[in-house]
C-alpha cells in the first residue's frame, strides 16, 4: 500500500528499527501468538475435508464408503489429530478474546466479561451436543 512513495528526504518509516523475520521465535508468548494465527490453516483444511465429505455423500453410498476408508489412512488420521488440537486451541483463544471485542449492554449496564465468556462456552457445549446427537444419536 503506497510503498512507492518517497516524498520526504527524512521519511519517518526509515527510522524504524529492523525486525527479524523470526521475531516470533524470541519469546514463548510470541510463539503462542503465531501458533494461534497458524490455527487458521487447520480451519481451512477442515473446510476442504468437509467439502470432500459432502461431495462423497452426494456421490452415493459407495463414494461415502470410499471417503470413510480414506479418512482412516495414517496420514489423514495424523493430520486430523493435529487439526483437533489446533481447532480446539483456536476455539479457546477466540472465545477468550470475545469479551474484549463484544461489549454488550443490557438495560444501560455493561454485561460483565465473565458472563460473555460463560455464554460462549455454554453455546459451545450446546452446539457440540446437538452435532453429536444429530450424527450419532438413535
Amino acid at each position: 500500500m503506497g510503498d512507492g512513495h518517497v516524498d520526504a528526504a527524512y521519511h519517518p518509516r526509515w527510522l524504524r528499527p529492523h525486525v527479524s523475520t523470526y521475531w516470533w521465535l524470541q519469546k514463548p508468548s510470541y510463539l503462542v501468538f503465531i501458533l494461534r494465527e497458524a490455527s487458521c490453516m487447520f480451519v481451512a483444511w477442515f473446510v476442504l475435508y468437509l467439502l470432500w465429505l459432502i461431495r462423497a455423500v452426494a456421490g452415493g453410498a459407495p463414494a461415502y464408503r470410499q471417503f470413510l476408508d480414506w479418512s482412516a489412512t495414517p496420514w489423514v488420521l495424523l493430520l486430523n489429530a493435529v487439526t483437533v488440537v489446533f481447532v480446539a486451541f483456536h476455539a479457546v483463544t477466540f472465545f477468550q478474546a470475545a469479551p474484549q471485542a463484544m461489549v454488550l449492554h443490557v438495560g444501560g449496564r455493561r454485561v460483565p466479561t465473565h458472563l460473555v465468556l460463560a455464554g460462549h462456552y455454554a453455546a459451545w457445549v450446546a452446539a457440540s451436543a446437538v452435532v453429536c446427537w444429530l450424527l450419532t444419536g438413535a
Partner: protein
Amino acid sequence: MIKRHPEPLLWMLFSAGGVVSGMLMPVLVLLFGLAFPLGWLNAPSHERLRALLGNPVIAIVVFSLCALSLFHWAHRFRHTLYDGLQIKHLNEVIAVVSYGTALGGSAVAAYLLWRLL
C-alpha cells in the same frame, strides 16, 4: 466523498468465522477425523447423512460454517504473512489470492450443498 474501506467488513467476516468455526469444528473434527475412522463410534449411515444434508436449515448452517471459516482463514492468513513474516511488498497479491480463494470455496460449498437439497 467518504472513501469506504473494506477492512471493517472483512474483520466482521473474520470474527463471525472465528466464532462459528470455534463452536462447530472441534466436535466435527473429533467425530469425522478421529472417532469414526478409528471406530470409537459408528459413522452415520449414508442415508442418514444424505437426509441431514438435505435439510435446508442444516444446509444453511453447513454453508455458513464453510464460507465464514474460509473468510476467517483468508483474513488471518493475510495478516500473518504481513505481520509475522513481513511479506509487505506482496500485500495486494496475497489479499486477492486469499479472499479470492475464500469466495471460490464458498461458491463450491453452495454448489455442493445445493445439489443435495
